[in-house]
């Protein structure tokens, strides 16, 4: 059933070894990340969960090439930190749609930056509007869309750049609970159809992480360290029903206890 999830033997697309990051200088510095080891294999969905302010976003910034680690190495598809910008898809917490562009012109922004002609870019976008629940809204401006639609538009913009690695920074945190669970199911379906994409999902929602990912890393409060890495295998197919199984609730409480125990370290 979860065929793509039997991916143990696939190559490591992302490999992070002993990465530390300190922000600020002199006596005013903060250690944001300390000796982080991390990897993700091709096609895997890997979640990083941790309390707010544990350096999760900094971690994604480093994977995207926006920030450089102070020590340690980062390799994404064979590329190192200095060459990563532009080759990793990164969707941030906020949708960051440009208010002066229509939905269509927003989602093709990345293609435009790659130098692809607007005509071809629009054709590629049109093909996917439907599966992103945006068809019929191509000519609307972002202000007219609901939070979920805006988030899907932002996601389509990231997907269209066609990078094989996707970084998602708490993509649904701005949505209400009902919308969030709809979006999680939608994302789950979508990711199954893009099974070659490697996804790193940062969240503080344990349920979301368990529902969507193949492996989970738990981070400690600042400085962020990886406390535990756990592989997630379910006996049931992933659906809402899974959430009420004993296996799910047990795993959830185990992960939560890691989170809580790491919290008391502080």
């Amino acid at each position, binding site marked *: 059933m979860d065929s793509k999830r039997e991916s143990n033997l696939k190559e490591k697309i992302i490999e992070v070894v002993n990465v530390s990051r300190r922000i600020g200088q002199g006596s005013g510095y903060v250690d944001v990340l300390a000796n982080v080891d991390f990897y993700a294999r091709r096609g895997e969905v890997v979640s990083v969960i941790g309390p707010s302010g544990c350096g999760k976003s900094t971690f994604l*910034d480093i994977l*995207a*090439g*926006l920030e450089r680690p102070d020590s340690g190495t980062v390799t994404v598809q064979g590329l190192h930190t200095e060459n990563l*910008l*532009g080759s*990793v*898809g*990164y969707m*941030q*917490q*906020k949708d*960051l749609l*440009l*208010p*002066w562009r229509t939905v269509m012109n927003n989602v093709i*922004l*990345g293609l*435009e*930056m*790659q130098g692809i002609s607007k005509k071809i870019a629009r054709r590629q976008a049109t093909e996917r509007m439907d599966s992103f629940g945006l068809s019929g*809204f191509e000519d*609307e*401006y972002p*202000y*007219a*869309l*609901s939070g979920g*639609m805006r988030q899907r538009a932002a996601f389509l913009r990231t997907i269209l*750049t066609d990078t094989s690695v996707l970084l998602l920074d708490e993509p649904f945190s701005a949505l209400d609970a009902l919308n969030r669970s709809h979006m999680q199911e939608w994302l789950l379906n979508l990711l199954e159809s893009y099974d070659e994409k490697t996804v790193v999902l940062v969240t503080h929602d344990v349920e979301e992480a368990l529902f969507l990912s193949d492996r989970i890393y738990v981070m400690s409060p600042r400085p962020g360290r990886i406390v535990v890495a756990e592989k997630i295998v379910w006996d049931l197919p992933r659906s809402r029903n899974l959430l009420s199984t004993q296996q799910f609730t047990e795993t959830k409480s185990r992960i939560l206890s890691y989170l809580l125990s790491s919290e008391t370290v502080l």
Partner: protein
Amino acid sequence: MKKVLVPVMEWLPAIGIVVTILVGWEIFVRVWNIADWLLPAPSAIGYTLYDSWGLLAGHTLVTLEEVVLGFGLALVSGMLLASAITLSKTIEKALYPFVIASQTVPIIVIAPMLLVWIGYGLTPKIIVVALISFFPIVVNTVDGMRSVDSDMQKMMRTMGGNRWSIFLKVQLPVSMPYLFSGLRVAIAVSVIGAVIGEWVGSSEGLGYLMIRSKPQFQTERVFAAIAILSVMGIALFALIGLLERLLIPWWHREREGRPRIS
């Protein structure tokens, strides 16, 4: 019918104030029997507007030309300067202090010097107008370009954006509402700039007409010129507002927040 009524209703308070002041003024002048050269009644000013329309219209066009050209020059140079300041730290450090310093030098001092250096014609007036109006344009546009949030810049960089593409695709459009705020201030001071330019030395324009009419005790003509200048200022201001609605419609919709699709 409703479509016509709504703007009328919106303007009603302003029109009410104007009418009240004019009526009070008229009564004041008539009851106290004040001489026309000291304070002409609104009716006398109105009559002058009607009677000397040919003369006034000619001078109005001259002043309008100075305002439009000076403002245009300020717009183009202001936007170029703001872009340069945004794109280069060095240019910012080198030029921004001068942009601010330029506003501390009284325009009334610079205007006569321009006359000495450049002469009597249209050019020194255009420069005075541009000098006085480019400041709000530059400052507002720079603020707008800087207002881009850092997450937006991050997003552009992860999509392979460089300094230039971030500027063109994000910073420039983001700065548009700020630019228009600057333009509104700029157009109002432009009219003042043109009048000052004409006062210092000219042979035509409403400012010149005022300077010439005052010693001849044609006070109602001075007031007629003031009335025209006010109307010009208001009309140009309204025109900027209209252009803003046409050119950046997204800004108003974003602010008004039409009901969302859910």
